[in-house]
């Protein structure tokens, strides 16, 4: 009896170990979790729409700005002059049009008295139309000049925090060249890079627990989207347009990582989040 008991004890422990090992394996390999997560935020790059010297810099690095707040001003002398010129041009075109209209009305009266030819009347009518078109053109030019003048005042398109401000008063900024970025307020979200083998276990609206590297309370959120594409380096070509195909081992393949975006629930008070922070993500299983 005692002999059977000692055999049974070992067998029970071995069976328990098999189940425990299987559970650990499943927990690690077949549940949707990843240590490869990053905090992200909506970044808005600030790009001047006109070129010129920065005459006034209104913000500092790291400053919190409200939507519509003045960030910096570009020297507006050239744009003011262009606007004045276009305005004068518009007036000029307006008077030209009025003159042409006046001539046309007068010639219409003359035409009824058979004093001028039909051709001359028609030429005057067309001149009036040309004068009107010139006036419309001048008005459009004035609108562009006014827009350029207003764009010398660069305002914040969103509320947020200024990041990486290296711009100084007196610097020359070029049209279309980014000068700094704004991290939009309350726009933090998390992207988890899950192995493709775990993607079938993930669906939208799935609850997520997010842990940061800093030892804070876990954040919660839910899956909003699963990335539908990642780059395939085999599709790149060299300068002769030949496909650059990567060589691989046949017996070992590395699973790709698919980005999964997670919207954060309300953040706990006082938490410091920065885009780029490392996060460990666990998704709830049914």
């Amino acid at each position, binding site marked *: 009896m005692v002999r059977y008991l000692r055999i049974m004890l*070992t067998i029970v*422990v071995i069976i328990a*170990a098999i189940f*425990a090992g299987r*559970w*650990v394996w499943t927990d690690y390999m077949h549940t949707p979790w990843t240590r490869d997560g990053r905090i992200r935020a909506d970044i808005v790059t600030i790009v001047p729409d006109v070129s010129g010297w920065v005459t006034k810099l209104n913000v500092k690095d790291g400053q919190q700005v409200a939507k519509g707040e003045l960030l910096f001003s570009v020297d507006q002398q050239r744009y003011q002059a262009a606007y004045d010129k276009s305005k004068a041009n518009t007036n000029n075109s307006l008077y030209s049009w009025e003159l042409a209209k006046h001539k046309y009305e007068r010639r219409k009266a003359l035409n009824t008295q058979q004093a001028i030819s039909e051709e001359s009347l028609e030429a005057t009518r067309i001149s009036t139309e040309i004068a009107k078109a010139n006036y419309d053109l001048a008005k459009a030019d004035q609108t562009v000049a006014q827009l350029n003048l207003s764009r010398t005042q660069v305002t914040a398109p969103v509320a947020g925090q200024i990041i990486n401000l290296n711009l100084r008063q007196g610097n020359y900024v070029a049209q279309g060249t980014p000068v700094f970025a704004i991290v939009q307020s309350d726009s933090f979200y998390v992207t988890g890079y899950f192995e493709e083998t775990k993607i079938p276990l993930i669906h939208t609206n799935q609850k997520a627990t997010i842990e940061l*590297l800093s030892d804070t309370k*876990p954040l919660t959120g839910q899956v909003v989207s699963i990335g539908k594409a990642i780059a395939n380096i085999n599709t790149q070509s060299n300068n002769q347009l030949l496909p650059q195909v990567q060589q691989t081992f046949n017996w070992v393949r590395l699973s790709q990582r698919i980005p999964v975006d997670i919207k954060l629930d309300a953040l706990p008070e006082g938490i410091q989040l920065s885009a780029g922070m490392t996060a460990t993500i*666990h998704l709830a299983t049914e």
Partner: protein
Amino acid sequence: MHHAVVIGGLEFSPLVIYFPMAFILTALTRFILHRLDWHDRIWKVAWFEVSLFMCFLALSVFLLSGR
């Protein structure tokens, strides 16, 4: 809750703690069995101890919910 072990800015899997922990627990069990002189009563001690190690490991992963 040990989802990750952070040492000097390096993040490790909690398994780096759970493995030695399970090993120490197994060694402790072995020591106690020796002291109580029950060691000889167990059938296939090596199998028993390896299985016990696995059980301790799974138990620590389960209780401390770490991966």
